[in-house]
């Protein structure tokens, strides 16, 4: 080997080692690692995903597929879904359902029981009357409510885990999983991420969010809570919650679906006992826990229960909560106190 070659090789070796180490560090810790994004539409809302790591593209596809697959099982609006068949067979036969549907029904029934029925998955007879989001959304008359309220009864929903079947006891009863479906979808997507072998990912199905893994640079996630006073297209935030992979957060807010009739505004968070929007001064409730379906169900349940009872219910599930009321007061459960940062201090203040 000529002297010149030896020099070149040694030079390249030294520089290559230094460069390699620096590039490795920059890529992994420069907080600029490639991410892949996708936005799709399912369950009547947007599905947004951001994933990091290899197999990112495949993960995004399986992720959005997982949401539509679940929708085909649990949405009462889909003709042949498990829920539609259960609703059609109400008062007659037991129907065989997918284990995933069964586990979601199980979570709903558990929350229904612990909230003494203030959360009720069999609320379809009433929600059909209101038809929030539909072209003919309206305020039902007192007579209509009285007529259909008796058919709202979670205790009439029986499930059989052994042979994966379920049944509604009476005719006219119906299941509406609208207040748990999006959270459940997040569970499915996070499982898909796990199977795809990506490093990290965040999925948002409407207002429910699921987190997987740690962001590049080994840091945790930061999720903002929507400011109810802001417009959809230009949403501002009240504050942010520091979260980890494996956690989920869902929010129930009056502003999500509401309409005005004869000068009064009606929102979609109904009290199953009287069929009317729950009016307790709250504007939104966010619930953080380690299961998506549960976070979604709890956010609705805690809203209807109100601040004190709602916080107690969440605590029994070891879930964290953020309550926002009409006066701009923000109450955070003790386990979230170090993780929640209020950013909009002009419109909102922390309850002490």
């Amino acid at each position: 080997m000529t002297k010149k070659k030896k020099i070149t090789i040694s030079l390249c070796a030294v520089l290559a080692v230094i460069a390699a180490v620096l590039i490795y560090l920059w890529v992994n810790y420069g907080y600029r690692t490639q991410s892949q994004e996708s936005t799709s539409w399912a369950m009547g809302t947007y599905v947004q995903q951001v994933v990091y790591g290899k197999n990112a593209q495949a993960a995004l596809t399986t992720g959005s597929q997982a949401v539509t697959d679940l929708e085909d099982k649990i949405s009462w609006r889909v003709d042949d879904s498990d829920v539609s068949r259960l609703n059609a067979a109400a008062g007659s036969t037991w129907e065989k359902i997918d284990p995933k549907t069964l586990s979601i029904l199980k979570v709903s029934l558990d929350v229904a029981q612990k909230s003494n029925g203030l959360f009720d998955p069999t609320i379809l007879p009433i929600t059909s009357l209101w038809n929030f989001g539909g072209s003919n959304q309206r305020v039902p008359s007192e007579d209509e409510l009285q007529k259909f309220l008796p058919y709202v009864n979670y205790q009439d929903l029986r499930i059989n885990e052994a042979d994966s079947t379920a049944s509604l006891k009476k005719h006219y009863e119906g299941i509406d999983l609208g207040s748990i479906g999006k959270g459940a979808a997040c569970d499915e997507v996070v499982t898909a991420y796990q199977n795809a072998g990506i490093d990290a990912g965040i999925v948002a199905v409407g207002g429910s969010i699921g987190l997987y893994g740690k962001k590049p640079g080994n840091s945790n996630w930061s999720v903002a809570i929507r400011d109810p006073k802001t417009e959809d297209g230009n949403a501002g935030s009240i504050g942010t919650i520091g979260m980890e992979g494996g956690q989920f957060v869902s929010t129930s807010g009056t502003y999500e679906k509401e309409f005005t009739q004869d000068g009064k505004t009606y929102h979609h968070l109904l009290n199953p006992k009287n069929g009317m929007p729950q009016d307790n001064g709250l504007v939104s409730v966010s619930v953080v826990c380690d299961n998506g379906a549960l976070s979604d169900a709890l956010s609705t349940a805690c809203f209807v229960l109100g601040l004190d009872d709602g916080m107690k219910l969440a605590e029994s599930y070891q879930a964290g909560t953020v309550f926002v009321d009409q006066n701009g007061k923000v109450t955070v459960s003790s386990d979230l106190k170090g993780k929640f940062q209020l950013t909009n201090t002009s419109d909102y203040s922390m309850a002490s």
Partner: protein
Amino acid sequence: MKDLNNISKNTKDVAFIGLLGALALVLSGLESLIPPIPMLPPGAKLGLSNIVTMYAAGSVGLIPALCIALLKGLFAGMTRGSVALMMSTAGGLASTFVIWLLLRIKSQPFGYIGLGVAGALTHNGAQLCVAALLTTPAVVFYIPWLILFGIGTGIITGLVLRIILPILGRIHT
């Protein structure tokens, strides 16, 4: 007669190397008195002492030059702790080696400024590697600054070396 001349020459060389070593330490000490500027990474130095190692790499051979770099590292270790020792040694050894290699190329493609910049960049690069491995990977944020700063100090180092080259040369002989 020949042997005596050789011994005399060797002693002169050793003495000169010692002189260079002392000069490197003095410059190092002077540099650390300058307060750090906020945007720049901790430990960012003008690189004045690198002038010495650059000159050594070209005049007294690789091994003595590396020894001077090692000496600088030890000095940093004594005054600023073990992390500084590792960083300075790595930076010094790497940059000295690279400059020596560049000087061995017969066609001498780079001028003093080019050499200064090559040395400074290698020095900073090696230091950062060590810092990241020893402490936290987050120091990788300094890479842009170290590159730009390295180019600047490299140019200065090259210029100063060119200016004092005749002086050092006369002391050597």
